[in-house]
């Protein structure tokens, strides 16, 4: 049968068309984020009052009287296969429109940088370092789709994302962060935490610079986060997240991340290792203009049409 091309469209087309609108807006135009909910306003206010991620973490720890060490008997059941509920395009699930800017209050240089990035994407110029299995890293780790597992032990919690085999280790044994003199940027940062009943409070610093997602702002090595994880029903994990990053954010960016437990009655969902070198057809390279292209298919040559 002969090949034929027929009319259709797709989500990705919508992304590009919408981005043309966003990028085309005047740089001086204010962001058009949806009005924050009362809860979001309250959480943002709390983040502002505590000034820094370390300050907010200390506030939560003081409120919890230092926290309650877990025992094997009190370990909560976070088993199962989970995935993020919201669109993978946006760090803040409250952003639902491709035609609005992110809900973060950005400093002028980083708002300009984001608009320029969106403009390039709208013109079909985009390369994501993840293409070659570079880790997403924190805080982008929070937003990536695919499967997740959360493993809780009394002294340490492991938060795993199938994508790029990224595992975050949350130390809940009472240790602090390494001294600033010994600190260096890490893909997942350095995470310490404590338990308050069934809530896990985490402070993460020492992260590498990156981007919250491809259509989202950048973050610097000064980014720090505070997270409060809680299983709010048998199939829902709710995470309050405050991002602090003074070069990028005018005020801490509060978001609520939700992960849903997937049904897996036949046990067919299993996390497998990711290796971009496993299949040659997955090799994506950065072009001279800074975009993405496949270069090395096994089934056709570059010149084949």
């Amino acid at each position, binding site marked *: 049968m002969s090949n034929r091309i027929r009319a259709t*469209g797709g989500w990705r087309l919508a992304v590009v068309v919408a981005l043309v609108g966003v990028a085309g807006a005047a740089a001086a135009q204010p962001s058009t984020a949806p009005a924050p909910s009362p809860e979001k306003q309250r959480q943002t206010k709390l983040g502002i009052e505590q000034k820094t991620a370390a300050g907010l973490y200390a506030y939560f720890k003081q409120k919890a009287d230092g926290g309650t060490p877990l025992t094997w008997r009190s370990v909560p059941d976070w088993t199962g296969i989970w995935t993020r509920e919201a669109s993978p395009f946006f760090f803040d699930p409250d952003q639902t429109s491709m035609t609005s800017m992110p809900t973060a209050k950005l400093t002028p240089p980083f708002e300009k940088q984001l608009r320029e990035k969106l403009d390039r994407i709208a013109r079909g110029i985009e390369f994501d370092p993840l293409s070659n299995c570079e880790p997403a890293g924190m805080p982008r780790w929070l937003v990536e789709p695919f499967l997740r597992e959360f493993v809780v032990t009394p002294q340490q919690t492991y938060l795993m994302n199938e994508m790029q085999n990224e595992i975050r280790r949350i130390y809940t044994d009472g240790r602090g962060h390494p001294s600033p003199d010994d600190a260096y940027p890490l893909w997942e940062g350095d995470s310490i935490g404590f338990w308050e009943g069934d809530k896990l409070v985490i402070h993460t610093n020492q992260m590498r610079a990156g981007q919250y997602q491809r259509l989202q702002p950048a973050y610097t090595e000064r980014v720090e986060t505070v997270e409060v994880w809680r299983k709010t029903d048998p199939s829902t994990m709710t995470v309050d997240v405050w991002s602090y990053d003074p070069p990028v954010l005018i005020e801490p960016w509060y978001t609520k991340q939700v992960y849903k437990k997937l049904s897996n009655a036949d046990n067919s969902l299993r996390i497998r290792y990711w290796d971009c070198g496993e299949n040659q057809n*997955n090799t994506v390279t950065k072009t001279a203009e800074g975009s993405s292209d496949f270069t090395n298919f096994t089934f056709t040559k570059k010149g084949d049409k």
Partner: protein
Amino acid sequence: MRKILGCAFGAMVLAAAPSFAHHSAVMFDEAKEITVKGTVKEFQYTNPHSWLLVDVKNEDGTVTTWGFEAEGPSTLTRAGIRKSDFMPGTTITISGHPMRDGRPAASWTKAMRGDGKEFVPGAGFAIK
């Protein structure tokens, strides 16, 4: 190498499948969709992306191998697509957004096997 009979730009439709989360999709033309009929050559069920290779017979009798990219095994499993669904030799009609540069490859949007069963990789992002 291949003959394309028709070409049209589609209306903007918000499909269920999100953009590839792992790499940019700028190499694919999202405004177009191709549909070809052929037989499965190989189903590369791999992370981070799977590739379904389909041999398509051209009008001049030659055969072109097309590659259709989808998400990896876990997302395909969630969409009800298993490796055994596309054994070599399986008859298939498959659609996708083609490469902008004309190479015979596309991002896989849907497929129908010879027995009439339909497979939509993007359905693997549904939460259930």
